[in-house]
């Protein structure tokens, strides 16, 4: 069954067809979420929430666009919402909240860890979608809900900012 057929069946309420879509996209989404989130718990929650939302709003999906770009759009919004909610929670009891989280095991020397600290979330997203997902500028602009020139400028500025970063320079030399 093709992706479009699966989507159409899922739109009519076939949860098993939607599960097939989940299986096809969960690795890509989860990798992106691991690069963007601070803890496993956060990435796990956002992944599940993203798919639940996708199912709820499946009828609003436009087949003109790739299904993956639509999923990434939902994931981006879900992360933003989740992080805002948890920031509020974190300020109430910072230490307790951190100690309850699963320790993040991604290599501290992973460049995406550094990018997360150095750049704004939107810029991290643009870099991920461009270099890892290899989306076109047009597709990224659609996910980010921004103009194509905004995406180009953002990409350019991020690269300059990273090139001027001494920590990154050391990291690149080590590689």
């Amino acid at each position: 069954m093709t992706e479009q057929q699966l989507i159409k069946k899922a739109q009519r309420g076939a949860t098993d067809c939607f599960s097939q879509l989940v299986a096809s996209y969960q690795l890509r989404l989860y990798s992106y979420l691991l690069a963007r989130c601070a803890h496993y718990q956060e990435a796990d929650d956002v992944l599940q929430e993203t798919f639940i939302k996708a199912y709820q709003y499946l009828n609003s999906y436009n087949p003109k666009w790739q299904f993956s770009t639509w999923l990434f759009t939902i994931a981006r919004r879900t992360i933003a919402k989740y992080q805002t909610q948890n920031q509020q929670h974190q300020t109430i009891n910072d230490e307790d909240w951190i100690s309850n989280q699963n320790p993040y095991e991604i290599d501290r020397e992973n460049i995406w860890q550094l990018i997360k600290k150095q750049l704004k979330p939107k810029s991290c997203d643009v870099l991920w979608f461009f270099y890892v997902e290899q989306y076109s500028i047009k597709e990224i602009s659609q996910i980010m809900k921004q103009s194509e020139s905004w995406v180009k400028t953002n990409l350019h500025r991020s690269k300059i900012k990273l090139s001027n970063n001494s920590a990154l320079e050391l990291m690149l030399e080590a590689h």
Partner: protein
Amino acid sequence: MKDKLEQTLKQNAEAIKAQAQTRLQQTDFSQSIEQRLKQQTNKPRVWWYGMAAAVSLTVISWLVFQQQKQTTEPVIPVEMVSQPPVLLNLQQIPITIEHKVNQPLIQEQQAIFTDLKRLKAQLLSI
């Protein structure tokens, strides 16, 4: 530098992907997602509640209207018949005025109820 940056970005993303793969093998998210979706589909749809509320509102309004209609209809009391015609006319003035004022309101109310009934019929036919 930029080439090296691009290369490192891709290589490090691969490391994250490998970690994601391992984690997905350990935790079966698709099962918990499917379970949550099934729970959601089993829940009655919100629009059913909306329709039920619309129907009950229509019925209540109709009952209230029926009650009001009975109380607002001008009725000439029986004892007035035995009274002289001039006095009868004078006593009838407030009733006639009330009737003239109320009549357009009643007609408007009836029109609203007809619309509501039509809407209810349309809703039920969906």
